[in-house]
């Protein structure tokens, strides 16, 4: 069992995640956009389009036009998530000494790393809890929700809570061995998973999340880019410039009486 969880499942999870997301995005991209669906006002240069996309991505500007409370919690959740992912990458690689690169002492860096991690973790959990509360308390949204919507929140909360518990007072997690283990996974010669059970559960849940991701609504991460780029497409130009042909297979030839 530990062999499977530690040395086989991570590869399955990464493969399913990458293949699954790629498959879904490719399926979308294979379908044509028969008619421009630019949503105006829209920028008319590619630099403007990139800027508009970046603004949406970083600030959720469309969501912000509507319910500001929803915007705040959704934004907080995603920004915390981004911090957590970045924090895992550098924190584990540098064994929490990443801030020595900007001149801190090792002890100060570890403290800084822990503080930022706790802030992001609490931010994420608070935001998820608020989004869950919202899902239950707003009648339309509750009616719209399916068990899977609650499952998604529960799965994320479980990942977060097991992660946060590793920081609890009295819990000691051997970061050096974790780094060694993760390094061995990346080098394709996976070591035995002789690690704290809290880490094992946390790691297992992340694997589940990665396998679940491409087939759930979490795919909205990829949908965001594909959808937004359709809405930001340049408007058509007339007379039609040479070489422009749209694939409008949605239209079929019909005989009219």
């Amino acid at each position, binding site marked *: 069992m530990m062999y499977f969880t530690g040395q086989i499942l991570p590869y399955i999870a990464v493969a399913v995640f990458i293949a699954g997301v790629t498959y879904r995005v490719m*399926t*979308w*991209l294979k*379908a*044509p*956009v*028969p*008619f*421009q*669906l*630019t*949503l*105006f*006002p*829209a920028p008319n240069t590619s630099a403007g389009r990139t800027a508009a996309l970046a603004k949406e991505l970083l600030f*959720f500007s*469309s*969501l912000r*036009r*509507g*319910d500001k409370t929803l915007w705040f919690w*959704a934004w907080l959740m995603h920004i915390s998530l981004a911090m957590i992912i970045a924090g895992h990458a550098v924190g584990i690689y540098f064994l929490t000494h990443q801030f020595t690169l900007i001149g801190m002492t090792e002890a100060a860096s570890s403290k800084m790393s822990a503080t930022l991690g706790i802030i992001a973790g609490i931010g994420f959990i608070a935001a998820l809890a608020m989004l869950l509360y919202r*899902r239950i308390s*707003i009648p*339309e*949204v509750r*009616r*719209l929700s*399916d*068990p*899977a*919507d609650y499952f998604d929140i529960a799965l994320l909360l479980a990942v977060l809570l097991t992660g946060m518990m590793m920081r609890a007072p009295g819990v000691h997690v051997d970061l050096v061995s974790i780094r060694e283990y993760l390094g061995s996974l990346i080098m394709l010669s996976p070591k035995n998973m002789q690690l704290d059970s809290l880490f094992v559960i946390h790691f297992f849940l992340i694997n589940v999340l990665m396998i679940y991701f491409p*087939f759930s*609504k979490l*795919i*909205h991460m990829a*949908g*965001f880019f*594909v*959808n*937004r780029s*359709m*809405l930001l497409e340049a*408007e*058509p130009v*007339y*007379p*039609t410039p040479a070489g*422009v*042909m*749209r694939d*409008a*297979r*949605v*239209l*079929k030839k*019909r*005989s*009219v*009486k």
Partner: protein
Amino acid sequence: MIKPPMHIAKEKEVEAIGFPMVPEAELLNQAKEKLKHMKESMRSLMVMLETCTKCGNCAQQCHSYLGTQDYNNFPAARAELMRRVYKRYFTLQGKLFGSFAGAEDFDAETLTKWLTYFYQCNECRRCAVFCPFGIDTAEVTIAARHILSELGIMPRFMQGIAVNMIKTGNNMGLPAPAIIDNAEFMEDEILEETGIVVKVPIDKPNSDVLYVPSSADFFTNIDTMIGAAKMFHMLGLNWTISSAILEAANFGLLFNLDVMEEHNKRIVNEAKKFGAKLVIQGECGHGWRAAKMYTEGASGPVPFEIKHVLEVAAENIDRLPHKKLSMRVTLHDPCNYGRGGNIIEQPRKILRTIVDDFVEMTPNREENFCCGGGSGLLMDEMKDIRMQLGKKKFEQVQALGKLDYFAIPCSICKAQLPTVMEHYGNNDLKMGGLMDLVGKSLIIS
């Protein structure tokens, strides 16, 4: 079982416009097949059905939901009517987990709900402005109505317009002699008013410009047509109207994309026939979107330019002799001008030039609310629902206090809003097109 709020076309009516009536026993299977075809032909449909996180931000942004308070008119819930069956048959999650993941079997009731609720969406795209992913329920509605029509299910109102279009080239069913009569009548009106001969040319060969007005401009909204004719006269354009396509309003976009294409091709063919280098679209919202955004896909490539009459007016109004009209005016942004077709600042420029008191309603531009008649929901039997859909618009206008004129430069808005204002108790407000005001402001010679 719910009952759809509109009259449905009968078998022989459906067949009269070239659609097969799919037998009841085959409906669900064929609907599934057609949904598959649509998703593979329309990236927007696939991505929009697969990306929603059900955050519910769209609920409070939809005038249809705000007006009717019917759960299925909340944009995400409306799209769910299609999303649930889509998930069931076309996604791994839906196949594996079924209702846990919100997937449902296609049944007759779903189809009835499609007919009922996709015809209470005005395709105004306001939800897309507020959705974090830009999910545009209008795309889902367009696809659903297309599938329904392919099954032989369509409102009789849409079918009637399609018949008129096939027979006469316009939605009102005006035959060519009546068109010529009405054009002469308008010429007489202008002569009487100004003493100047202004032509409203019909089928004039070798014209540089083809004008495609809404057929209602030859019927109920003649001041819009007169305004455009005066402006073209002052600009010295060599223009004509084609009796074969006296219709900007492309109802195909509102119930069947093949019908949309046929309409679009009529414009293209007529423009080529008259040798036009420029096609100018008259005051019609979705007609503008169909011409501007759909021509390339439906009939492209085309050798001429496509402009809106308000673009032409905004570009030229400064240099044309005009007088400032003393009136307090507000502007309703038709959805398919603003969000749908990039006509946002032009009407404002025109109004600032020709009237002395232009006030904005709130919200405006791309955040404006639909009139409630959008996407062709003008059938009499839907009047009660349509009034609910127009409630938000009434409140917006009422908040501005006393107005002399309400500029609603779109034929559907012109059909819907007088009824809405009257329904909610404002009987005195004058309203109509924007070219109407341009016509009154221009000093012609």
